């Protein structure tokens, strides 16, 4: 028998049931770790550390979950905040540079590369963090643009623009 997220959350809130929370972790670990793995550019250990931190934080803050959004959306929000805090700690990211392109980012427009089919993961590297995060949330994890805006704590228009820009960059690099 499969319990809904709401059932499991109720059990955690009522009796602090760690098994119920374990089931929630099992359900969403892949999505959260995959999201973070792409944000930290493939560093699996770092992604897992941040994911663990996020799940522990979610456990501590579960009583603040009002059920207005999907549990998955709420969890992504916590994971993204954990990523930002971690990045700040590592001085990789300043307070407002989410829209800054990464050091190696360039939208390759050279003729030699334009016909070269790049691996999608490699092409994703050329996106800014904000573009990458929006695309991962909406395409890999099936969130709506509104949910992604909620997770990333940015206006809806910003998410749409980031997705559009990101996809244009990807199209320029991938031959489909």
């Amino acid at each position, binding site marked *: 028998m499969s319990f809904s997220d709401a059932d499991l959350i109720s059990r*955690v*809130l009522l*009796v*602090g049931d*760690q098994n119920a*929370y*374990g089931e929630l*972790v*099992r359900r969403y*670990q*892949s*999505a959260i*770790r*995959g999201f973070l*793995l792409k944000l930290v550019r493939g560093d699996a250990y770092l992604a*897992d550390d941040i*994911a*663990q931190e996020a*799940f*522990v934080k979610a*456990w*501590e803050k*579960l*009583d603040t979950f009002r059920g207005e959004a999907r549990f998955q959306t709420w969890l992504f929000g916590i994971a993204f905040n954990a990523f930002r805090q971690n990045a700040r700690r590592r001085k990789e990211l300043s307070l407002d540079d989410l829209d800054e392109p990464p050091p190696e980012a360039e939208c390759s427009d050279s003729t030699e590369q334009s016909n070269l089919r790049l691996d*999608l*993961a490699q092409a994703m590297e050329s996106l800014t963090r904000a573009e990458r995060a929006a*695309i*991962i949330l*909406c*395409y*890999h*994890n*099936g969130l*709506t*643009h*509104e949910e992604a805006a909620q997770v990333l704590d940015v206006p809806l228009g910003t998410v*749409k*623009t980031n*997705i*559009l820009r990101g*996809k244009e960059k*990807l*199209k320029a690099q*991938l031959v*489909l």
Partner: protein
Amino acid sequence: MTNPIQDTPESSNPLDKLLSESGEYIADNGFCARVIAALPPHRQRRSWRAALLGCTLILCGCLAVRALPSLLTTLGAARFGLGTLNIGFLPAWILVIATIGSLVWGALALTTEQE
């Protein structure tokens, strides 16, 4: 002409399809167990208990203090044989007992949390 900015990803576009299919499943490999091992004690229940305990203590304490003078008067009268304990003071006595009970409960709760 279609609007390039859409609310949900479309699957007919090859890039959209590729993006949607590229999110592979990551096996647990002990991750869940590590998270469970790192969980702190459930705070919500403890804070709920502390809040309830605090409210009970304050409420009973206030009412008991308010009822204390009349209780002392009854006690004094009973000691000097001027009368017996009045049944009308029963609610006040209950308050005093509830306050003492809350204090005992609080002490027990603190002991349990320390464990």
